[in-house]
């Protein structure tokens, strides 16, 4: 059961000389739920982008499901599903069309598509909204659809970048339920980031905390709490990463992202 499914070694990403991710190494075991935590700008999203072949590392090496990210990107891509922090579904298409588009990209056999799409939509309770345009969906429904879509090609690993950001408590609860179910029934490895640390504490088997591009602690939750003499993971998190508020320079894309989020609600 303890096979390593993600192996990261000496991973570094520099942007104009600044190391967003600085020489990190760790591994994820097959079938575990791993929460990757850190303040804003700590390097979480950059790491996920490198793990998912969107960014090329400046240095270091990543192996996912036995495949080297740089040498066999397509085999790596077939091994994982991802739910991005920003919306990545097409609003002008229906839920079914979005799913179908995904099944083309992942070369799912034609005769299996319809059945698989229905099964995944059922999992996230969207089957009755199959032919509705995504632009008429609420934020939570879009997220659920994105989760369903990311599972369509039956990936071994699921990356979730802030899957519950901006959702109401009910929807958040539901989403964590699907994730747990998926992990239990399909043994899907889950790699997630979130700012809701109490949620991570509830769901994760192991936690890694990154700050200023470096891993400051990694291990199971009890160990981390013990080490920092904290009652909750959140307390441990604050102790480890300090109280100062992180100021991130807003890029034009962040501004667009803000506007989108406002529009979405």
């Amino acid at each position, binding site marked *: 059961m303890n096979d390593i499914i993600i192996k990261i070694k000496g991973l570094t990403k520099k942007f104009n000389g600044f190391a967003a991710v600085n020489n990190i190494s760790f591994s994820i075991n097959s079938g575990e739920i791993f929460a990757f935590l850190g303040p804003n700008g700590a390097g979480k999203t950059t790491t996920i*982008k490198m793990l*998912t*072949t*969107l*960014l*090329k590392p400046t240095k270091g090496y990543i192996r996912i499901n036995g495949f080297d990210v740089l040498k066999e*990107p*397509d*085999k790596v*891509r*077939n091994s*994982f599903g*991802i739910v*991005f922090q*920003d*919306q*990545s*579904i*097409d609003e*002008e*298409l229906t839920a079914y*069309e*979005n799913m179908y*588009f*995904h099944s*083309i*990209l*992942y*070369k799912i056999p034609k005769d299996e598509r319809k059945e698989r799409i229905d099964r995944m939509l059922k999992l996230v309770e969207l089957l009755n909204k199959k032919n509705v345009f995504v632009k008429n969906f609420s934020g939570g429904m879009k997220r659920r659809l994105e989760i369903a*879509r990311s599972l369509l090609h039956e990936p071994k690993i699921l990356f979730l970048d802030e899957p519950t950001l901006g959702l109401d408590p009910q929807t958040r609860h539901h989403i964590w339920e699907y994730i747990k179910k998926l992990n239990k029934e399909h043994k899907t490895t889950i790699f997630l980031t979130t700012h809701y640390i109490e949620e991570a504490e509830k769901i994760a088997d192991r936690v890694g905390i990154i700050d200023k591009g470096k891993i400051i602690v990694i291990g199971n939750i009890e160990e981390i709490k013990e080490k920092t003499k904290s009652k909750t993971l959140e307390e441990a998190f604050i102790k480890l990463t300090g109280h100062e508020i992180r100021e991130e320079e807003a*890029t*034009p*894309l962040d*501004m*667009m*992202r803000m506007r*989108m989020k406002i529009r979405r609600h």
Partner: protein
Amino acid sequence: MMFKINFEVIFGLWLRQVKRYYRSKSRFIAALGQPILFLVALSYGFGPVFQRAGGVNYLQFLVPGIMGMSILTTSLMMGIELIWDKQFGILKETLVAPVSRLEIMIGRTIGGATVGIIQGIIIFLISLIFGFRPIINYLWITPIFAIMTAFLFSAFGTLIATLLQDMQGFQLIMNFVIMPMVFLSGALFPLENLPKSIIAIIRINPLTYCVDGLRQSLTGIYHFGFLINFLILIPVTSILLIIGSRAFSRMQV
């Protein structure tokens, strides 16, 4: 392996773009509004002056220009839409999928070009209502120029999009790329007897040759002629497709 192209992926990307375009009615109408306005205002406004100056029927002259303009605007915008897709659309979803960047680029370019061509056909049909009468002899060449125009500007739009950071640059493109290209191309006025400096600018504008080709095939009126237009447009379109694909493959999100 590298050159194995999956046609279903390309078809899927193409279908998505075409569907998207025709489902957003406001965009569809906006994209038709401007050329129709040009057609009405200019042909009625300048028509009499043009004829008195010894020209042909101005509507006959203008329609191919407006078709060119319409194809340019639509295809270029479809290409530039990539900026939006980078952050909020499904581009990221396609980039993490096991498909090559070249397939994505081909799918997008054909999608953008298709929409541009359909837009050109609609303008053509509308202009028939206004009284435009094409000559038949070279009508079969019209689609060739329409397709080249659409691919050229679809690729050009993608290239611009890989260079731009955000949508703020969009207005800039409208004012400093689309408008000058349309006005300094011979789309709206004949190129005879123009000052040398203007002619020099018009000659480096690829739309000039698109419009000249469209105009000759539709009405028989031309400045450069089919041969020169082809000799210029074929390499320019190919080069833009190649540069656009390379810029797209190198792009990181």
